[in-house]
């Protein structure tokens, strides 16, 4: 029974990390139709920022800025020219991701590095270790911040307008280019924060992002494009499913079970949990 209960915080914290990563993806994908494979490398950049600073708390804002800036540059220099060609952005950003990984390998060395966990995160309450609680707290804070941004600020409402109907938004005088930039900045920044969170539960290596990017995309697919609620539910669901599938079968079958579950889910809701309703055909 206790082993069963122990899986709960693990699953929830995996879900929390996936959520932080998927928040950025679901908006860049939903709003701009960009499949950013280099998003995983923003996680890695965040994690290495924590490694360089050696301290968790200052690393959070710095990682947000570092990863956000990387996203912004990527958007301005390359992705901007690819709007409307999602499959091409996937391949383009994959090239970027290869270069960034190799860059990390050259800068920090191929072996994994460890970031010391702060002493105040040692221990826990009951079955909940503090470090996993902290990660969950970060995800909650991230979701609340994104929600507040989207619903309570003018820029956020403009973002929503672009997600719902880009051309109509542009006709109404919204500078969609600026909104795109900002979305990319925030989404990439959140991936950086996720990277800092990951230093609490494991080592940091150049390929860190590749372990999470596929699952994060599955969250987007299951949750529905550009849907905050969908991303939250799908991330928690996927995190729990992952950890319990590992618990009941074995680690090697877990991913197959998760994928089968998602394909089964898409039979019922082909466009994810929540769908932006519109009369458009596609």
């Amino acid at each position, binding site marked *: 029974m206790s082993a069963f209960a122990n899986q709960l915080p693990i699953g929830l914290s995996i879900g929390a990390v996936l959520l932080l990563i998927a928040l950025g993806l679901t908006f860049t994908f939903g709003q701009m139709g960009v499949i950013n494979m280099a998003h995983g490398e923003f996680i890695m950049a965040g994690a290495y920022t924590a490694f360089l600073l050696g301290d968790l708390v200052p690393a959070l804002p710095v990682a947000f800025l570092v990863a956000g800036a990387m996203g912004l540059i990527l958007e301005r220099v390359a992705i901007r020219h690819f709007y409307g060609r999602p499959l091409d952005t996937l391949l383009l950003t994959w090239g970027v991701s290869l270069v960034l990984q190799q860059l990390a390998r050259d800068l920090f060395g191929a072996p994994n590095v460890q970031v010391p966990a702060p002493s105040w995160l040692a221990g826990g309450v009951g079955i909940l270790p503090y470090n996993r609680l902290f990660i969950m707290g970060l995800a909650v804070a991230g979701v609340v911040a994104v929600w507040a941004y989207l619903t309570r600020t003018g820029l956020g409402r403009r973002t929503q307008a672009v997600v719902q109907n880009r051309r109509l938004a542009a006709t109404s005088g919204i500078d969609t280019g600026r909104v795109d930039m900002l979305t990319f900045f925030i989404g990439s920044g959140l991936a950086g924060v996720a990277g800092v969170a990951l230093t609490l539960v494991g080592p940091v290596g150049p390929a860190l992002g590749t372990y999470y990017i596929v699952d994060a995309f599955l969250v987007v697919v299951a949750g529905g494009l550009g849907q905050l609620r969908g991303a939250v539910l799908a991330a928690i669901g996927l995190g729990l499913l992952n950890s319990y599938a590992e618990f009941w079968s074995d680690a*090697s079958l877990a991913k197959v079970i998760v994928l089968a579950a998602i394909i089964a889910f898409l039979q019922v809701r082909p466009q994810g949990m929540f769908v932006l309703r519109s009369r458009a055909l596609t």
Partner: protein
Amino acid sequence: MIRRNLPFATVAVIVLVAAPLLLEPFRLSLLAKYLCYAIVALGIGLAWGQGGMLTLGQGVFFGLGGYSMAMHLKLTEGGGLPDFMVWSGVEELPALWVPFANPVFALGMAVLGPVAIAAILGTLVFRQRVRGAYFAILTQALAAAMVILLVGQQGLTGGTNGMTNFFDLFGRDLAEDSTQRGLYLVVASVLGVLYLATRQLVNSRYGRLLVAVRDGEDRVRFLGYDPALVKTVTFAASAGMAGLAGALFVPVVGIISPALLGVVPSLELVVAVAVGGRHVLAGAVLGAVVMGYAQTAFSEQFADGWLYLQGALFILVMTLAPKGIIGVAERLRRARTT
């Protein structure tokens, strides 16, 4: 007719006659390896270039073919259980692998296994009108899951190391130059036949329908066709090609392991197709051979630089020449004639 087939005939003569005469055995084996990849690329060219389905999981099908063949080779070598099973403490041959001692069954599974999986996945996904990027992500997740499964089931699959050390193929010594040359000819012929068949398919009514589905799926549906069926058949065909390529790859290269079929190798082949030119089938084949050669040539000299080069090449191709090498060649020819 003759004019149209002249380029193909020229390439066929070079590949089938000139290359075996001129290249030393080691280089010929390498070329055979690239041609195996070219078979997978041909399938990607069909599914992605013509059908618009970006499949990022061809490595899975390649792997199924490869593991079927590898297991057959292990089981027919004699000497009881395959070596890797002995190392992981398996005492009896798992029932799953028993029929693979039969060459027809093993080869059949190498092709039909991938076809069946692609047909099931395609039916489930395309019927629900899941497409484009969603499909790409699902196939990529399939590749990721497959690698974890293969690594985890060590007693069945040899784990991370996969299977290697093969000695004979259908009673012939694999180390002999003549066997390797024969294998090369088989691989090249298979590629040639598949290329002609796929080109025929693309030029048929069915091929027109496939392109129509790529460019306007809903319109095709309104005209009374079933786009899901067209896509599923195409996806299954490309999976079958990848499976066959995997089965040929194993005796040529002498190894199959999860590292050869995961997310990255699957993507690399898509990259190769894009570099060659995805809009024509010949571009896919050309891209696979060129990228295979480039990888060998560059990683022989500086291993780390290859990743930079591959990444940079890819960014450049996508931004400057989205139609790849063939696209550039076409533009040059048009510039000269006008």
